[in-house]
C-alpha cells in the first residue's frame, strides 16, 4: 500500500466541481509534481489534503489509515503529517521570521523551546536567511519570505511537504533562489507534492509527474513519459503550448 493514497476524491467550490474523482499514490521519499492548466484542480487537491477544502467523496489514506475530514481529531492528527507552503507565503505579519518558524512547534507541538529555536536557526541558515531571523516579513523580498515559509513548514518535521505554486508570485529573478532550496530538499529524500508551472524544474526533480485537467488526472508517469511523450491529446496540447513560450 502506498504511503499516501487518494481514492476517487471529489471536491467542489459551491456548485462547481473542482475535483472529479482523483486516484493517486504517493510513496515515501517520492517527489510528485502536479501540472496542468489553471483551474484544473491542482491547488485544490493540496487544500483538500490539509483539510482547507472538505472532500465531498472518496477517501484519503495515510499509511493505510483513512483520514476522516469531518472529525476534528482525525484532521488534527493528519495535519501533523503534512505541511503546506502557499503561493502567497502567508507568513504571520506580526511575528519575526524566527517566531514564524518556531510558534507552531513550540506552542502547538509542545516541543522543547530551546531545541526548536536551535533547529529553526539551522533551517533558516539552510535556506540562506541566517541573518534575517529578527526581521519581520514585510522587510523581506518575496523570495526571502517564501524561503522563510519553507523553513516554517520544515520546522514542523512533516512527513509530506506540499508546495502550492510557491514561485508563481515571485519576480523572475527571485524564482531561482526558491527553486534551489526545493532542489536541496528533494536531494534529502523528502516526500513532496509540488504544484508548479516551472516545467524545466519539474522535469528535473520530479519522480512522478501528474497531468491534471478539469479536476481529473489525465496522465501520470515519469517526467519523460508525461512531458516528452504524452499519450493523450489534451496533455500534448498543453505541453506544446507551455514549451512554445
Amino acid at each position, binding site marked *: 500500500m502506498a504511503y499516501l493514497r487518494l481514492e476517487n476524491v471529489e471536491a467542489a467550490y459551491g456548485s462547481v466541481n473542482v475535483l472529479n474523482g482523483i486516484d493517486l499514490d504517493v510513496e515515501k521519499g517520492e517527489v510528485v509534481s502536479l501540472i496542468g492548466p489553471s483551474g484544473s484542480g491542482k491547488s485544490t487537491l493540496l487544500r483538500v489534503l490539509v*483539510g*482547507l477544502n472538505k472532500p465531498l467523496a472518496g477517501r484519503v489514506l495515510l499509511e493505510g489509515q483513512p483520514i476522516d475530514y469531518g472529525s476534528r481529531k482525525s484532521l488534527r492528527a493528519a495535519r501533523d503529517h503534512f*505541511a503546506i507552503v502557499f503561493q502567497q507565503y502567508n507568513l*504571520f*505579519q*506580526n511575528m519575526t521570521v524566527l517566531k514564524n518558524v518556531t510558534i*507552531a512547534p513550540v506552542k*502547538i507541538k509542545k516541543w522543547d523551546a530551546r531545541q526548536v529555536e536551535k533547529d529553526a536557526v539551522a533551517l533558516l541558515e539552510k535556506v540562506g536567511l541566517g541573518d534575517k531571523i529578527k526581521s519581520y516579513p*514585510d*522587510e523581506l523580498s518575496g523570495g526571502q519570505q517564501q524561503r522563510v515559509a519553507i523553513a516554517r513548514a520544515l520546522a514542523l518535521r512533516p512527513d509530506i511537504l506540499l508546495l502550492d505554486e510557491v514561485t508563481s508570485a515571485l519576480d523572475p529573478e527571485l524564482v531561482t533562489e526558491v527553486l534551489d532550496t526545493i532542489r536541496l530538499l528533494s536531494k534529502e529524500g523528502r516526500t513532496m507534492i509540488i504544484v508548479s508551472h516551472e516545467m524545466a524544474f519539474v522535469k528535473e526533480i520530479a519522480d512522478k509527474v501528474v497531468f491534471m485537467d478539469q479536476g481529473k488526472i489525465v496522465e501520470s508517469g515519469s517526467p519523460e513519459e508525461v512531458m516528452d511523450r504524452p499519450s493523450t491529446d489534451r496533455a500534448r496540447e498543453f505541453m506544446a503550448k507551455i514549451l512554445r513560450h
Partner: protein
Amino acid sequence: MLTRLAEELPQFLGYYNVMLLLKAALITLALSAVGCSLGLMIGFFIAMVRVTRAKLLVPVRAACIAYVEFFRRIPFLVTLMVVFFVYQVVGRNTTVFTVALTAVCLIATSYTAEIVRSGLESVNVKQWEAAETMNLNLLQTLWWVILPQAWKVILPPAFSFFILFIKDTALASQIGVVELTYAGKVLNNKGFSAVLVFGCVLLLYFIISYPLARFGVWMEKNLGVSKTGKR
C-alpha cells in the same frame, strides 16, 4: 458681561453647586466607563462568535447578527425610552441610572461588536488558513495571529466611538438622570448665567474625554503600528 460673571462666581462656587456638578460628572463618567468597557468586552465576544464556523453555533451567530444590526439602527434616545418602559412593564422598581446604564451597554456593545468584527475581517483570510494548517485552534489563531494585526484597524474607530459616546450619555438627562447636562440645566434654572454653567459643563466633558483620546493614541502607537517601525 465679564463683571456679571465675576459677581456670580463666588456664589456659583458654593458647596452645593460644586458637589452637584462633580456628582453629575461622576455619573457621566460611570455611564461612559461602564458602557465602554462592558460594551467592549461583550462586543469582543460577539465579534468572536461571529468568526466561528461551527454549524452548532448557527443560531447563536444569527442572534448576534440580529442584535448588532438592530441596536445600531435605532437612535440612542429611543433605546433609552424603550429600556425605560420595558423596566416599567416588567414592574421592577429600578432607578433611572440603571435604566440609562442598561441602554448605554446595549448600544456600546452593538457598536463595538461591529468595529471589532470589521477589524478581524480586515486581516487576510490566508493568515487564518496558514494558522489552521499548523493546527492552531480558533482562540490561538485569534490571539496570536489575527488580533495583533487587527488592532490598527480596530483602535481608531473604537476610540472615536467611545469619545462620541461620552457625549451621547447626555441624552440620559431626558429620563431624569442627573448627569452633567442635567446638572447644567438645574444650575441654569437656578439663575446662573448659561455661559458660566455650560462653560463649566463643557470643561468637565473635556476633562473626561481628553485622557481617553490620549489613551487611544497611546494604544495605537503601542499596539497598532507595524512593529518593524518601518512600514
